[in-house]
């Protein structure tokens, strides 16, 4: 009886710790973003979401007993290449011909270099000893979720972007081909991971998770579309239920007389 009770207390403690150090900070991130975007408390919102994000990042140290914190650990692990990618993309866009906020033309080259370095780091995380390790030297279980999803999604989006670029613009074939090459490159990385073993994962494991990543992407897209559809139905049915606004009464004789006098003063006048 005592043993069962102590086990229950321990479980409750670990749940409470996970709630305080992982789940509540995770909830604070969107709340802070909402406060920032809505303009109700911009500074407070920024501080709230930033502190929530930092607590999620370090959750694998603050509450190591919780399995959920592996996600926080993974996000921290991919933070550096993600920031480098964002920096590179910013340089590539604003180093070109933009009317506002134009950077030095070298920013375009340094940006391209930064994007390729960030992709190289991600590849090294799979094929070299940069792989994110979590408990007892084991690989972070979410790495094998993140990596195939990123590769599949970027291949797919780059392919769609290439088609969109050539379809919705004039003489953009060469730019479209560059985007298609990026798509092929990402597909090539995915193919390599399907054939060659990673540092701590086998190619067989990667191929297994490729199915799950495809299921994840497809499911997420359908789920998001369903939610947007439900939102549209809710708003449409509310707007439809609103009464038609009443017509304003016709103008009185005095009002007509007043309008006519104003009109006459503008279009009238003596002939020269």
């Amino acid at each position, binding site marked *: 009886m005592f043993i069962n009770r102590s086990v229950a207390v321990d479980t409750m403690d670990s749940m409470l710790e996970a709630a305080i150090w992982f789940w509540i900070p995770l909830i604070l991130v969107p709340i802070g973003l909402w406060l920032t975007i809505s303009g109700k408390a911009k500074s407070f919102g920024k501080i709230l979401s930033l502190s929530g994000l930092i607590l999620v990042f370090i959750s694998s140290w603050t509450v190591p007993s919780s399995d959920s914190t592996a996600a926080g650990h993974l996000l921290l692990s991919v933070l550096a290449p993600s920031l480098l990618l964002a920096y590179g993309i*910013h340089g590539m866009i604003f180093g070109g011909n933009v009317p506002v906020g134009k950077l030095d033309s070298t920013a375009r080259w340094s940006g391209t270099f930064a994007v390729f370095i960030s992709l190289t780091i991600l590849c090294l995380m799979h094929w070299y000893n940069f792989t994110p390790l979590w408990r007892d030297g084991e690989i972070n279980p979410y790495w094998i979720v993140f990596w195939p*999803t990123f590769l599949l999604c*970027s291949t797919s989006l780059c392919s769609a972007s290439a088609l*969109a670029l050539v379809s919705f613009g004039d003489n953009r074939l060469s730019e479209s081909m560059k985007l298609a090459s990026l798509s092929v490159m990402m597909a090539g990385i995915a193919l390599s991971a399907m054939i060659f073993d990673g540092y701590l994962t086998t190619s067989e494991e990667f191929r297994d998770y490729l199915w799950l990543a495809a*299921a994840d992407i497809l499911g997420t897209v359908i789920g998001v579309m369903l939610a947007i559809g*439900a939102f549209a139905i809710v708003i449409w049915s509310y707007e439809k239920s609103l009464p038609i606004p009443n017509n304003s009464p016709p103008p009185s004789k005095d009002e007509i007389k007043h309008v006519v006098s104003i009109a006459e003063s503008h279009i009238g006048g003596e002939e020269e």
Partner: protein
Amino acid sequence: MKQPSASWKLLALAAFLPILVLVAIDVSLGDKIHPESFKRFGNAILTSYVLMGIILIGNLFFYADSRHRPFAPFVGMMFAIAIGILIAWALISNDDLLLEANSGLRSQMLSNVVHMLVSGTAMLLAAVLAIGATFAMITGRERRALFEEEE
């Protein structure tokens, strides 16, 4: 003005074709469909539906500011989300239909949220790469004069 030659259907095909090709290569390497794929698909639909619904409820506050703060859309969205949670609860707890390698209903639901956090980050990063590269290609072109007066 040039008419767009590609429809949204073609764009959707361009998006899903690379995934299908990679999966087809996977099959040609002798692999079979992962047994947990359907469960992952179902969990991804329900989780993204509920989470996106919550985000859209946040968006309702902006809508309410322009409509004398009506209560009906808020209740409607809460109802829509409740249906999503109810379906998730029914399918996870009933006959192991959507239960993955987790001990029970609560751990599966929490695991779904954490999984969505990771896969959502991966998709977001991929979107940054693809959309950013697209804009970089557009801004990388030589500036052309739209009218003769500009020259």
